[in-house]
């Protein structure tokens, strides 16, 4: 997410670019003179005209285009944005919009074909069926629990990597924390399936204490999701803590605050936006997950599973269900953006 610091947009307001008449003749005169200026002079008259004039003319055309683009930032912007925006709007937003439109259609109960008659039956069904309510609340609870676990676990790690570890190791430590983020999601969920299996490594490790692991189920889902998204929480908190100015902390100590007081009244408020930024990922990624739930959840159903199982039989219902996590995520993102936390990413 981009920082919103505004540079003075050098490409637009450059003095040289603003004087179209003078620039080519004076400043850049030596360039064209050597290449495009020289080649046509010899090429047009001589026998090798076709061979020599072609590339030179081509190059001159390129130069002309570049110069035009340079003088017209709006045109340049349009060219920069056309392809990506088309892609984004057509392939992504268009598909999303079509999906939410489909939520207002119905399904033929016999053929499972989508019937395009406008109605709000799917939403009524989602909102009035208690199963969906339970699934939705369970999902929300899971996402909140995952976020809470991640904040608690990430804070000490980030505090250590950002402020306690020797400065020359800090960068290395951050990389060490982030590398597992790129190990396959599936592999990690799969590893936890082995760890949590009956008689598996966790049971084996807890046996001497007379305990056993949680097995597959909702607690396992929370553990695995918290594990999967942990680096997303560590990195923003690390960045926030690393950015804390030392003099603020010194001032707090000089004014008599002890460690805990400084932490509560100075560090926490300053790092809160980073925590919020991290929570965007832990929360929204948990809301839609269904693969990890299938792998370690036992019989647990979250909203992702409900959407997944409805897709082939009743797409409009699945679409109506999908609006729930999307609405929650978008509201969450907008609320967080208001606090400015997204800029600290």
């Amino acid at each position, binding site marked *: 997410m981009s920082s*919103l610091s505004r*540079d003075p*947009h*050098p*490409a637009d307001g450059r003095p*040289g670019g603003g004087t179209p008449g003078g620039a080519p003749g004076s400043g*850049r005169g030596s360039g064209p003179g050597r290449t495009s200026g020289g080649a046509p002079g010899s090429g047009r008259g001589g026998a090798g005209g076709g061979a020599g004039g072609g590339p030179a003319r081509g190059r001159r055309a390129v130069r002309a285009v570049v110069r035009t683009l340079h003088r017209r*930032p709006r045109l340049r*912007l349009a060219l920069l*944005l056309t392809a*990506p925006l088309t*892609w*984004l709007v057509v*392939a*992504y937003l*268009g*598909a*999303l919009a*079509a999906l939410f439109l489909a939520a207002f259609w119905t399904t033929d109960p016999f053929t499972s074909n989508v019937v395009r008659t406008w109605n709000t039956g799917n939403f009524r069904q989602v909102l009035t069926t208690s199963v969906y309510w339970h699934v939705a609340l369970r999902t929300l609870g899971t996402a909140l629990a995952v976020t809470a676990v991640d904040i608690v676990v990430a804070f*000490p*790690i980030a505090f*250590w990597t950002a402020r*306690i570890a020797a400065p020359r190791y800090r960068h290395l*430590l*951050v*990389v*060490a*924390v*982030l*590398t*597992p*983020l*790129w*190990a*396959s*999601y*599936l*592999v*990690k969920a*799969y590893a936890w399936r*082995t760890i949590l299996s009956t008689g598996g*490594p966790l049971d*084996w490790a807890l046996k001497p204490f007379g305990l056993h692991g949680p097995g597959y189920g909702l607690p396992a889902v929370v553990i695995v999701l918290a594990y999967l998204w*942990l680096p997303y929480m560590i*990195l*923003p908190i690390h960045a926030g803590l690393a950015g804390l100015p030392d003099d603020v*902390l010194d001032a707090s100590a000089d004014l008599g605050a002890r*460690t805990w007081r*400084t932490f509560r009244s100075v560090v926490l408020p300053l790092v809160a936006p980073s925590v919020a930024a991290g929570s*965007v990922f832990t929360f929204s990624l948990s*809301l*839609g*997950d*269904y*693969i990890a739930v299938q792998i370690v959840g036992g019989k647990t159903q979250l909203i992702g599973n409900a959407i997944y199982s409805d897709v082939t039989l009743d797409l409009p219902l699945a679409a109506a269900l*999908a609006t729930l*996590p999307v609405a929650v995520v978008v509201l969450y*993102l907008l609320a967080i*953006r208001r606090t400015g936390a997204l800029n600290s*990413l």
Partner: protein
Amino acid sequence: MRLSPTARIVLRTTALLGIAVIYLPLLLVLVNSLNPDRAFGWPPGGITTRWWADAWHSGGARSALWVSVRAGLGATAVALVLGTLVAFAVQRHAFFGRQTLSFLVVLPIALPGVVTGIALNSAFRSVLPPLGLGFGLLTVIIAHATFCVVIVFNNVAARLRRVSGSLEEAAMDLGAGPLRTFRDVTWPLVRSAVLAGGLLAFALSFDEIVVTTFTAGAGVQTLPLWIFGNLARPQQAPVVNVVAAVLVLASVIPVYGAQRLSGDTAAGSRI
């Protein structure tokens, strides 16, 4: 911040424990790939390389790997072009809706994968048949590209933000034209970020499963789809585990490469 020695020790222990917990599951996958027991009885009773040999000869895993590589390369190519363009537009221009755009670009990664997946699935189902096309590798590439763009965008935008326009201005003041400035100043400055973004985009595409589930054609099986499909088969478990171990080892490559290329915490660009 002044910390008591006790607080220091407690923090250090918790942090080290946390990092250990991050790596233990990955280590377990590696250890289990050598576990002679088919059901991964714990602790392992010995060491065997049999599963590695089996996995090497597994035709399913090989063809899935090839599909994943092609999908990743295709998606990365699209993402490189589009992501770099958006990054230049957002970082080097002021325009109406700039903030909305940088918000929109990240949506594909922030919204649940299952939503993106079914949205693309139903869109493809209504758009492709009239064109005489069906689900296949191309649909996977299109789907992956939508979120790979974010990674390239994040990398290049971060770099452009850091090297503000003053170097380009200097080049222009010294008489370089726009083309020359781009070739000799701008491009060398952003090149490594573009490459790092491409590497990481490939890695993201390589292990994506949710969106892939909804957009792959019947005959198209990427490596994650292959793993997921074989998870439930006890007979295949050791081979799946070896493939998982290979993926764990291979995931170091893009992170290391991106780190070398862009020097900054490029690995964080997934965020």
